[in-house]
């Protein structure tokens, strides 16, 4: 039996895969193209369709996740618009650097090495910061009208916030940062995004928290808001060349819509320190997967592509499972403590 031009089994597979990615996307504000595109490539889709459909899927999922984060008061539109402006400029410069490196014949190797070290470096840093932090419950996730606790703002962000170059921009969570600092951070993340050819959620989300100092839930919501625009424009450009296949995108989106809702809701349940640990571990898994794939390309070992995909999917499955498990555990713990208090 065929639905949307694909078999029922493949349809169920796409919906299930979408659910998994949706949980991660809603929870971390990243993970879409990072997971979908390699999976489609290994399944035998042409790279144009894999990238284009991946972007269209990311666009749809980010719309849903952004709407959910908006309901939770976790999107800073002012910061989002400024980030879009700075990131766009950075992406353009990143592309120019890539073209220059291509003319020198160095683009592939330099980009791969940068990707592995960046993913691994951010993953290690985030995991270390989360593990060394005091597990005191983290920042209050109900950010509406409240100021972030000064103890929760990373030292680098405090330093950046101390540069009072006008105009100063007031952000959600009681954070005030110079416009130029926001644009500089946005440009730097856009530069890396354009250089590496990725959506950049895994760079922007930690940058918003560690460099600008906005609380993690707002960093996730604002990052998703930005992805709506970058994903929309990117998928539109690919769709013009026939690179978007709706028989892939629609079932993936049906699964991820539910997953994104679960993931977004989980950010208000699970402790922030746990969020950071999961995020770091997933980046480390991705870093190892990319290294394995590159090693396969260099030495011509095709099985490494499959191992890379299994590593990516495995870490995604483990982390999304941990998010769901932590949410359920937290609900049960709160329930039992409420019962004991009542007794």
């Amino acid at each position: 039996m065929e639905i949307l031009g694909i078999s029922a089994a493949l349809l169920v597979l796409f919906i299930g895969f979408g659910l998994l990615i949706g949980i991660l996307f809603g929870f971390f504000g990243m993970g879409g193209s990072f997971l979908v595109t390699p999976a489609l490539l290994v399944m035998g889709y042409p790279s144009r369709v894999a990238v284009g459909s991946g972007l269209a899927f990311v666009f749809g999922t980010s719309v849903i996740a952004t709407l959910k984060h908006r309901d939770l008061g976790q999107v800073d539109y002012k910061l989002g618009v400024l980030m879009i402006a700075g990131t766009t400029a950075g992406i353009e410069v990143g592309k120019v650097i890539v073209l220059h490196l291509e003319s020198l014949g160095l683009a592939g190797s330099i980009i791969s090495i940068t990707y592995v070290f960046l993913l691994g470096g951010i993953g290690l840093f985030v995991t270390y910061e989360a593990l060394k932090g005091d597990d005191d419950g983290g920042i209050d996730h109900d950010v509406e009208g409240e100021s972030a606790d000064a103890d929760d703002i990373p030292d680098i962000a405090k330093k950046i916030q101390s540069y009072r170059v006008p105009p100063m921009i007031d952000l959600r969570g009681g954070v005030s940062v110079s416009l130029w600092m926001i644009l500089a951070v946005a440009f730097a993340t856009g530069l890396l995004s354009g250089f590496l050819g990725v959506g950049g959620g895994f760079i922007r989300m930690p940058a918003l928290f560690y460099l600008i100092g906005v609380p993690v839930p707002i960093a996730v919501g604002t990052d998703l808001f930005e992805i709506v625009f970058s994903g929309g424009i990117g998928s539109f450009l690919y769709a013009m060349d026939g690179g978007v296949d709706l028989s892939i995108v629609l079932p993936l989106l049906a699964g991820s819509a539910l997953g994104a809702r679960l993931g977004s809701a989980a950010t208000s349940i699970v402790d922030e320190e746990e969020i950071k640990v999961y995020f770091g571990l997933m980046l480390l898994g991705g870093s190892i997967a990319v290294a394995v794939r590159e090693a396969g390309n260099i030495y011509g070992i095709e099985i490494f592509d499959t191992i890379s995909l299994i590593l990516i999917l495995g870490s995604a499955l483990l982390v999304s499972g941990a998010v769901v498990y932590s949410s359920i555990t937290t609900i049960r713990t709160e329930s039992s403590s409420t019962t004991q208090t009542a007794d």
Partner: protein
Amino acid sequence: MVAIGSVSSLVDAGTMIGIVLAEAIVLYFVYGAAESAFSERVINQLKKS
């Protein structure tokens, strides 16, 4: 592959992205309604189990 008629690549691309956007918005409200209807029941079930 699901194909859209080719009036022009711009219209085709716009239609495709429009379909994805429409599905996203419809799913957001459908799942939202489902969440409102069932979430409390699911959470209570989790607390009891």
